[in-house]
């Protein structure tokens, strides 16, 4: 059974890139353009991993993470955050909110798949 991944980003290019890479690697992918939309999608089914951007309109990544971690349905799902900066502050914020790990843009397809294996049971 293919693993289901939710990709959350306000940039369509970014969503498409993540989505393309993941689908090619055999994952089932759903997309959402912000935190609110993501929570909606999460309400509709079970996911094995969430990959989310931090800067988004309506609901940002940090709030999304906090929401997911304090909810019940996807509390234990690994969350990877997408960051452009390799410096520590964004990572630390995301981590404090309950993110599992991070992915620094730009990323190679191999790196993305490798990280998924590292956090996704």
């Amino acid at each position, binding site marked *: 059974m293919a693993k289901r991944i939710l990709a959350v980003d306000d940039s369509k290019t970014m969503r498409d890139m993540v989505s393309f890479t993941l689908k090619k690697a055999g994952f089932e992918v759903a997309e959402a353009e912000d935190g609110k939309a993501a929570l909606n999608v999460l309400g509709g089914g079970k996911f094995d991993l969430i990959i989310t951007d931090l800067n988004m309109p309506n609901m940002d990544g940090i709030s999304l993470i906090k929401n997911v*971690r304090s909810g019940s349905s996807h509390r234990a799902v690994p969350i990877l955050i997408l960051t452009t900066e390799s410096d520590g502050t964004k990572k630390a914020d995301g*981590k404090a909110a309950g993110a599992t790990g991070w992915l620094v843009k730009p990323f190679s397809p191999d790196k993305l*798949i490798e990280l998924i294996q590292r*956090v996704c*049971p």
Partner: protein
Amino acid sequence: MMSEGEAYPLEQFRKTYFEECAELLDVLQANLELLAAGAGSEETLHAIFRAVHSIKGGAGAFGFSSLVAFSHVFESLLDALREQKVDATPDVTQLLLRASDALADIVNAARSERALPIDFASDILTGMEEALAGASGATAAASATSGIEPVAAHAAVKGERSYRVVFTPHTEMLQKANEPLLLVRQLRKLGGLTVDVDMSRLPAFEVLEPEAAYLSWTFVLETGAPQSAIHEVFEFVEDDCDLLIEPLQQAAEAVSAAPTANATEAAPAVAAAAEPSATVAPTPSQSIRVDVDKVDRLVNLVGELVITQAMLTEQGSLLPVDQYPAMIQGIEALAQSARELQESVMAIRAQPVKSVFARMPRVVRDLAATLGKEVKIVTSGEMTEIDKTVIEQLNDPLTHMIRNALDHGIESPDDRVAAGKPRQGTIHLSAAQRSGRIVIEVSDDGRGLNREKVLAKARDRGLVAPGVNPSEEEIDNLIFLPAFSTADVVSNISGRGVGMDVVKRNVQALGGRISVQSRFGAGSRFTMSLPLTLAVVDGMVVSVGKETFIVPLTAIIESLRPQPADINPVVGRGDVLALRGEYLPLTYLHSSFAIESAVTDPCQGIVIIVQTEGAGRIGVVVDELLGQQQVVVKSLEANYDAVDGISGATILGNGRVALILDVARLREIGDKPGMRMTKPARETTSEVREDMNHAA
């Protein structure tokens, strides 16, 4: 775009290419092993070169660029070897072996259209490139550099290093969906991994917080990857755990470094230039090489010392304390020192089975590739220590068992899928110390033994008489008989596996036993149990009639004196003991060992509940418990012919010989009422004793 008509033949060519690759990799492997064993000729090198060259050629045609890149460097190094520009030193042959391994992986990845990490085998590539660079400018480098660079290059060529990783998650780590299990798997990808769990933080069940992290781990990783790769595995949890990653010194390296390091202190530049190829460890080493014979002698002497000390202690306990205070204090101090001395000496010769286990993934990988099967190997208990002499003998039987599991056990990927199993088969290799023996298990999730066919074959060959109906376990173990060829019975592949009778002979030669448990369609588990040639055992001293036995403490669950109502005879199984709803078969030592004037009624004696190797618990009936004691195991195999049901002997403080029970064999007697041990205990103890006196 390509039309279907064109795509089909290309697919066909690819298939042919990969079949060819499998053969070439076999050739490569076989010849490299010759080379490594020092048995290679000029032709060996040529064969190696040709194999790599052919793989590279095909790879170019299909556009497998990473395969081309890797085999190109590999090929160049082999060419330099042929031209004798590079010497086939042990380091270089090791490098070639690893390169061949990596090449096989790259071929497999290309076949399954799987991407390998970008830095896959980069250390091997670097090593090969450096070996090549050394060849072209060898003379210049030696005289021009200050000694630092050659050292670095050498370290890179050596490749594999050991790291100790101590990983202690903070309590809240799990709540961010970080899972230690996944980290272990990532570590395992980097190389050979041993796992040691620490449960000391685990609280009592009632107060355990279900989502908090309590377990912590110490890993030993042998890897060619840089230390940064280990850090990367823990990248996401670094702030949520205590993490220690440290390189472990390798003994051999350290030894050769010691003199160099000393010389360096006196005249750094001269020393480095004089011996540029020596490995200089970052810190001066404290280790030395010692001849194993000397250690063996030491081990034996200490064993004698401990026995003498035990006698003294027993005699000393008869002295009145107020009259001989210094004497009694001295005896106590002696006991303490003797124990510490013994532990230290034992630690010198005992080695983790890791050194043998570490070779097995490669056996699996190579054979799996040859057979076109997908198999992974999971090892555990690698840190289990076993005497060095046994470790050296372990490789062959273990390799045979693994090969057998792969060849006859694991099905082809398609067959597995058809049977509803994952494509990839799993072989578990584990070691543990139990009941004073080392138990090594090789289990697979393959097709298991087809008992009907095995039995039919055995009847055919007259191995099982007509009218006799062996138990399932007995049927499974028929495959160990010399006259029994498993090839056409259990699998269709023939001519490859080694007969299990050979394995059994090997194991028996080590004083061990081997058995198999199997479930048709679900897999087989081979259990090999080996004696520790010398060990200290915490034992319960028990008496039966006039004889004394030691029951290894680790095997004992509890002891009790049953009520008559708890003992029930069961047809075909002898007596059983009802214990809290369980029914445990009873074994009477007096009957097993033909001991006279012993207690025959369990309700008058003591029943010791022991855990046997297989699965079951049994009750052992003895007269009484005399106390707990640490005893020095004298191997019976060395001093005297092996005796069923006995794993060794010891000399007690009072000078008496006591036999150490082999709990696992007792169980077999429990299953077969009326079966007797080969010899009465009295005979055995007296002969053992004579023999030991001779030896002393």
